[in-house]
């Protein structure tokens, strides 16, 4: 490390500024809850399933409590109070009765409140224990089956039908994928509920449901054992149900989740407050579950220019790091994203890419960085696209990236064909094998182009962070600082699901996540980042 000779004081300053910029937002997240945070806690307590129309019982129950007593105190007190008083068999029976309007909720006090809290805590503990068990199971499989060397090859499947996804994912694993991502149906981020069961129809992707998670993880466990390497599964903890999907991922042993601090705000027009509150809970769950998050900085470069906006990527990474660490994520769980999106017609475009990629590598030495292939400048010229993907792979190997999403030469034409995927893997295999440990030999000339460019991006990042600290992060987002899209703090979808917590708020799962070390009793992970071949 230290090829760029970055000034440690500037780096420390950048981190301090990111911390300062994040603080008011974290404080807001600590003092608010959302409908989805409450539903996630019910899911952790074991409530699942949906009515005949597909509306989940967690939605019924949270809505009923909200209508009758409000959510400021959390759903746990009214729910477990009702369970005790009216002797329903379980949460599911209570939710079904509540859906019919047959339950009267109240905010208990005194001994009733203490009893309700105790029961709620016990239920939350069971849920957290289930997540702990799934994490231990992953550790055991990594030992028994084997953990593939980095960089991990990341491939996508997206058929819309979980039963088509399964053989495709298994085929992708056999072809060399270390990480399989199941792209989510395009409308799901704006659904304020999580669909139920195995699904066979989606738009440009497959719905994230607990059953789909379970089916895919089981299928990848089979193929992992066959191949002698643990194949990781990725989905999306984003959108209006981010906390619930994070919880389901923890319960079904997903390994990575796309979970960016600002993606939903900027690209899906989800309310900024809702996003940050939901995100903190989801990251606390990910920390506990040993899930690696993947952040979405690559997306900024699909709307903004990859050279002009390079520093916004770094700023977002620093913010993602801060929000992540505060929520308990270890550095080895921070799959910070970036991308190879500079216009190839630009002179020195590859040198610029190397500068950006090396800068990110050195700023976040222990993070399993996720490097995204070119998309914006991929054209119908598949031959030129194949070359560009090779240069992307080369930059990835030279700068020691950890997770490499495999670029398809038919990007922008169609969803990858079998042959596209095979050729893409041939491309990355060639580059990986031909380069070997080339990263060792890649030492940019002191004060040369690469070093100076990295320095410039870092200094622009510090400037921007200073402005954000002055204006506040929410204002910067409203001004269109990231991805050139303006998102006011009170705009967007889902603000009506945000509630300020009252004194005496009870969130039993939140309490556990907040007060316990998420990594206690877990074996230390191997350090990420270095290219291990």
């Amino acid at each position, binding site marked *: 490390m230290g090829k760029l000779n970055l000034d440690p004081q500037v780096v420390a300053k950048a981190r301090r500024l990111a911390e300062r910029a994040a603080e008011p937002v974290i404080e807001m997240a600590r003092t608010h809850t959302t409908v989805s945070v409450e539903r996630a806690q019910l899911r952790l307590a074991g409530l699942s399933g949906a009515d005949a129309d597909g509306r989940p019982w967690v939605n019924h129950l949270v809505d009923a409590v909200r209508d009758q007593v409000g959510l400021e105190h959390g759903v746990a007190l009214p729910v477990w109070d009702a369970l005790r008083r009216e002797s329903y068999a379980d949460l599911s029976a209570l939710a079904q009765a509540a859906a019919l309007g047959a339950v009267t909720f109240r905010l208990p006090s005194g001994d009733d409140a203490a009893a309700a809290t105790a029961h709620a805590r016990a239920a939350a503990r069971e849920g957290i224990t289930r997540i702990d068990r799934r994490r231990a199971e992953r550790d055991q499989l990594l030992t028994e089956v084997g953990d593939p060397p980095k960089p991990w090859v990341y491939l996508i499947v997206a058929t*819309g039908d979980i039963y088509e996804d399964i053989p495709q994912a298994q*085929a992708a694993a*056999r*072809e060399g994928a270390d990480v399989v991502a199941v792209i989510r*149906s*395009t*409308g799901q*981020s*704006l659904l304020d509920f999580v669909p139920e069961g195995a699904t066979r129809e989606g*738009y*440009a992707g497959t719905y994230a449901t607990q059953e789909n998670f379970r089916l895919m993880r089981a299928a990848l466990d089979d193929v992992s054992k066959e191949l002698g390497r643990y194949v990781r599964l990725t989905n999306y903890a984003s959108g209006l149900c981010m906390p619930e999907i994070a919880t389901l991922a923890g319960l079904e042993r997903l390994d990575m989740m796309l979970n960016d601090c600002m993606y939903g705000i900027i*690209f*899906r*027009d989800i309310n900024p407050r809702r996003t940050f509150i939901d995100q903190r809970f989801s990251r606390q769950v990910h920390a506990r579950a040993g899930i690696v998050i993947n952040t979405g900085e690559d997306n900024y470069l*699909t*709307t*903004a*220019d990859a050279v002009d906006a390079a520093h916004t990527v770094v700023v977002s990474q620093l913010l993602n790091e801060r929000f992540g660490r505060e929520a308990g994520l270890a550095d080895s769980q921070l799959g910070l994203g970036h991308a190879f999106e500079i216009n190839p017609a630009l002179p020195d475009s590859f040198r610029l890419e190397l500068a950006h990629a090396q800068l990110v590598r050195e700023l976040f030495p222990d993070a399993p960085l996720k490097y995204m292939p070119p998309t914006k400048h991929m054209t119908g010229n598949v031959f030129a696209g194949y070359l560009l993907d090779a240069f992307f792979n080369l930059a990835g190997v030279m700068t020691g990236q950890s997770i490499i999403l495999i670029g398809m030469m038919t990007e*922008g034409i169609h969803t990858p*064909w*079998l*042959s596209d995927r*095979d*050729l893409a893997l041939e491309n990355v295999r060639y580059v990986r094998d031909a380069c070997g440990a080339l990263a060792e030999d890649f030492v940019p000339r002191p004060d040369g182009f690469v070093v100076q460019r990295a320095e410039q991006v870092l200094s622009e990042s510090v400037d921007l962070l200073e402005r954000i600290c002055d204006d506040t992060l929410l204002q910067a987002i409203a001004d269109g600082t990231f991805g*050139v*899209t303006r998102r006011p703090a009170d705009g967007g979808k889902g603000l009506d699901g945000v509630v300020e917590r009252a004194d005496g708020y009870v969130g039993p799962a939140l309490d556990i996540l907040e007060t316990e070390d998420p990594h206690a009793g877990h074996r230390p992970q191997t350090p990420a980042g270095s290219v291990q071949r």
Partner: protein
Amino acid sequence: MIQRETTTGVPEATDLPSIIRPYGDTTGDAMVQLSFTLPVPAGKRAELAALGLARQMGLDPASVVHAKAMGPHFTFFIVYGKVNHLIDYAGIEVPEGREYPLLPAKEIELAIRTVLNRRLVVVGACIGTDAHTVGIDAILNVKGFAGEKGLEYHREIQVVNMGAQVTVEELLERAKAENADAVLVSQVVTQKNAHIHNTKQMAAAFHAAYPTAVGPGMGRPLLIAGGPRFDTVTETELGVDRIFGKGTTPGEVASYLVHALLPSWTPQEES
């Protein structure tokens, strides 16, 4: 015949042969390349199957230059061959170019100021479940696309970008509230022809909401659909006034707005 090029780089029409065949490295060699996958295990039999396909496609002789197993059940082929087809180039009519001139930014603003004497209002959205705002943002946001600034950049154009996953009802309501001169919808997701269904639904709703309209800009907004996969349908089939495909720049859209909504404007220069 070897093509001579004029100084402008465009071959002179008189020099073009009337009957043509593909060109590998010799005039008339009729060589083409193609690649495809067959759902059979690699081997001699698979190669014969690939040659069989090539022959049925009119490649004769054909040769398999590359065959690679992709897992146990599939083989990928690259095939070169000579086609036996002739193309009557003289019989192909030159397709019409853009029906309107590309105007510089200044002229667009001048046209709106002169003819409309108020700001031209554009409402844009990704409708249906489509969450991909890349296309609509490239056209509307200041940032623009391909080095051109988006419509927001023009002082004379008021842009309302409603973003992703907007319902037809929301779009219609907003278009009415803003007195939109033009409505742009972007459709990127094409699974199960969602882009076609959504756009048709949008157009039908607008036509129903403005029953007395004479045409675009005359009683109803101009309806524009954009997306990479509209090449199989016509404007009439969708019920819109104009379809824009992949690679459309904001300048093309702005110039079209002037052409379609301000027909009395006489373009000052063509580019």
